Every structure is written in C-alpha cells, then in structure tokens.
C-alpha cells in the first residue's frame, strides 16, 4: 500500500436522466502510486471528469470504493489531502490575486502573516510575483490558470487533481504551461491526476496514461510513458513521442 496513493476499486457511477438511467462510469479499477503523474485520457462522455470528481468527493460513486492515502474520499476532502484545479480558473473576482491564492488558508484560519508569506512563495513558484495585487480579470487566461494552480497548492496537498486545466487555452500557452506544471510537480513531489482529452498533452506530462472509452465510460488501456525525465520541448518531436501517441490512438480504435 502506498501512503499518498489513490486506489479506485470497481467504481461505477450512474445517474438518472429524464427517461433512463445513464451509466457514466462502469467498473473502473486503478491504482496510482505516491508521487506519480498520471492522466485520465478520453473523448467526451468517457467519464474521466466524473472519475476525478469522485476522487475529490464532489460526487459519490454508485458502486465500488475510492481510497485516498488510505482514507475515504470524504475524510481526504475534510483533511485537505488534495488540491483541485478546474477547467475554469474559478477565481473570485472580488479578491486580489494573492487573496485568491490564500482563500483555502483563510478558511483554515491560518494567521495573516503566514498567509502572506505563503502567497509570495506560491506566486514565485508560478512566476507571477508581479501580479499579486492585481485582480484576476486583469490577467490573461493562462495566468489565471497558474493562479488557480498556486491556490490548489496552498495547503501543501499530497495530491493534485486537475480537470482539463489547460483545455481553454491556445496551443502555445498550453505547451508552455505543460512544462511549467512539470517543474512545479518536481518541486512539490505531489501525486498528480490530470484529466485531458489531448493525447499529446497526456504523453508529454505523464508517467502513465489511463485511456478511457465512452458509452459507458470504462478503462480500456493503461499506457506506460517511457520517455525519460526531465521532459523537454524537443521530445515533442522525437520518434518515441510519436510512437506513444500512435499506440494510444490505436488503443481507442481497438475499443
């Protein structure tokens, strides 16, 4: 058993639509190790976001169980074992950048001086020290998402859950943020679960890619990403990178 790992055991999730019961996730089991960077990859309707939300205890599985660092997802949420980044930055407009980052600390009654110190440290980590007193809407989309990442790291969680965090960004910002995310991951030693529908993004970032298929959402393949670390821009053009992309694409067609 791994202390900061995630164990998903035979999890299913169905919900009632107007006319019938829809099976969003069907009998998924997977295990994520401490410090691992994994992606949940698949087209829309494959249940990847649903799966992540169940890990975050924002949804409850109909069947099966999820354990986070040996705890139930509810306990993990209450003890802030994870930080989460959504597709939208979800920053609060009325708070300055630094106050957005320290929101989770404020909720846990961390003293102001300590919050300020932590905010500066995190701003430095995401390279946005200059913007601490700006409002979120004064920042570009990519910067806003970096602030959201800083906020997710504020409680120094062992696990970082990311739900298509860069999907709203242009290709250039996305690739740059991919590299930054890896640097942050290296510094924080956290376990990352990254939801994406981009094959190349999942290959570039991950140790392992869990490939999900839709209707009903189920795990169809697990691909080990054998690219060495640290990952560099140049690797995106390497034959091995393309080979892995092809391998993942084939696993979709096979399903």
């Amino acid at each position, binding site marked *: 058993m791994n202390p900061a790992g995630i164990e998903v055991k035979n999890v299913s999730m169905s919900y009632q639509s107007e006319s019938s019961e829809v099976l969003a996730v069907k009998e998924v089991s997977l295990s994520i190790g401490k410090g691992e960077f994994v992606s949940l990859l698949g087209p829309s309707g494959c249940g990847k976001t649903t799966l992540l939300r169940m890990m975050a205890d*924002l949804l409850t599985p109909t069947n099966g169980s999820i354990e986070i660092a040996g705890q139930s997802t509810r306990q993990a*949420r*209450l003890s*802030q074992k994870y930080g989460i980044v959504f597709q939208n930055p*979800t920053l609060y407009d*009325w708070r300055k950048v630094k106050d957005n980052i320290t929101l989770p600390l404020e909720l846990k009654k961390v003293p102001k001086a300590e919050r300020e110190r932590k905010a500066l440290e995190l701003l430095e980590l995401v390279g946005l020290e200059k913007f601490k007193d700006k*409002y979120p809407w*004064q920042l570009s989309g990519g*910067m806003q998402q970096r602030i959201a990442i800083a906020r997710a790291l504020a409680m120094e969680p062992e696990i970082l859950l990311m739900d298509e965090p860069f999907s709203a960004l242009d290709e250039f910002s996305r690739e740059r943020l991919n590299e930054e995310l890896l640097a942050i991951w290296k510094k924080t030693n956290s376990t990352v679960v990254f939801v994406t529908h981009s094959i190349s993004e999942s290959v570039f970032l991950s140790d392992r890619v869990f490939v999900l298929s839709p209707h009903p959402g189920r795990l169809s393949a697990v691909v080990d990403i054998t690219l060495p670390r640290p990952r560099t821009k140049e690797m995106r053009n390497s034959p091995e990178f393309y080979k892995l992309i092809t391998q993942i694409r084939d696993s979709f067609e096979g399903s």
Partner: protein
Amino acid sequence: MKRIKDRLLPSLAWLFSLLVIWQLVSWYLLEVKETTLAQSKVPYIHEVVHTLFTYGLTLLQEGWSTFINAGAGLLLGTAVGAILAILMSLSTWAEKTVFPYVILSQMIPVLGLAPIIYGIVHDENWSRVIIAAYITFFPVSLNMLKGIRSVSPGSLELMHSYAANRWSIYWKLLLPNGLPGLFNGLKIAAPLAVTAAILVEMMGARHGIGVIMLRNLYYGPSNTYMFWSTVVASALLGIANYLLVQLIERIVTPWQPAFRTKGGDN
C-alpha cells in the same frame, strides 16, 4: 481631455435643444394660442430657474428634510431587503414561505398604507422613513436574491472541495456575489425612496419638499413657478440619491465588469 469633450458635447447639445424646444412651446401656448393656465402647463424655464434661486434656501432646507428621511428609509429598507434575500436564499422552503408575503406587501397601495402608518407611529419623520423603507426593500431584496443565486456552480464546488462551512460560503462567496445585485436594487430604490417620502409629506407633514409642493399647488396659478421649482427640486433629490448609490457602488465593488480598467500586460 479630448475624450471627455467628445462624450460631453452630444449630451450638452441634446440638453440645449430640449430646453429651446420647451421654451418655444411655452411661448407658443402663452402668446400665440393664448391657452388658459399656459404657464401652469409648460412654464418658462427662466422663470422657474429664477424662483429656484430666489427660494433656494427654503427649498434646500425642506429638501434636506426630505432627503434625510428618504435616506434613512432607504437604509432601513436595504437592511430589511438584504436580510430577507439572505433568508430566502437559505433554502427553497424559506423562499416559499417568505416570498408570497413579499409580493403581497407590494399589492397594498402606499396611498392607503401611509395614513395607517401615521396613525400608528404619530410622527411624520418616522412615517416617512417607514414608507420609504417599505417601498425600497422590495427591489433590493429581489435583486440581491438574484445576485446570490447567480453564483457559478464551479465557485460553489471549490468551496465544497475546501470543506468550507456554511458561514464561510456565505461570507466569502455568496454575499460578495450578491453585491452587484444589491446595488442594482438600490439604484432602482434610491429615487423611489425620495418619491415615497414626498408622498407621505403630501398627506400632512410640517416639513419637506412635498409640503411646499402641495401648498403651492393649492395656491393656484400665481404660485405656478414655485410649484415647478419644487418639482425640479424633487427630481434633483432623486438624482442625487441615485448618484450617491452609484458612488458607493464604485467604491465597494470596483471589480464589477462595468468598472474594470485595463490593467494586465499579458
């Protein structure tokens, strides 16, 4: 500087044209068509302005009395409206219980309610405050409730992910999110509060713009310019109240899209 000029010029041109048209109509009714009570219908602007300045001090004193009571009523109405909005936002059960009465309250004509309130409190100041509050709490409450409800599901989910308690969710998310709605309601309510106060004054008070308005209406055509002066003064009070609310809005919620300045060098 040039931009301000560009923006100001059209509105000034409009205002000027309107005033000229008014004066022409006034002159036409009085001198050409020789309508009875021509000046009561469309008075000469220069005469009204002249009266406005001659009796400026009186108007200011009476206006101040109206303004203070309307302001106090607006504050009270805002407090009641905000509390009701928060109450209704707590649960659909609370909303279903409170909402019908909120609607019902607006069905009672103020003309009928004012004497009742006066009969109860026996104080013209308190009557004005209560009626002004009575008229203003409704738009404040409804708009603030809408503001609280307009919170994005993502923002709420973020709070859940932090295991935030209900108090924190209200204080750090729902209430700030409801502020723009609150101010929308206040901007509707601000001129209404003045109107309400004047209405109560007309039903028998000793001070206030409504008192001289009614008095000059009774005195007939000889006081027509004074009557019009009070109309102008009332309008100015309403506008002043509105602008005051707008100023406070800018200070309290500078993050609203309408006030945003370009600041990011992305």
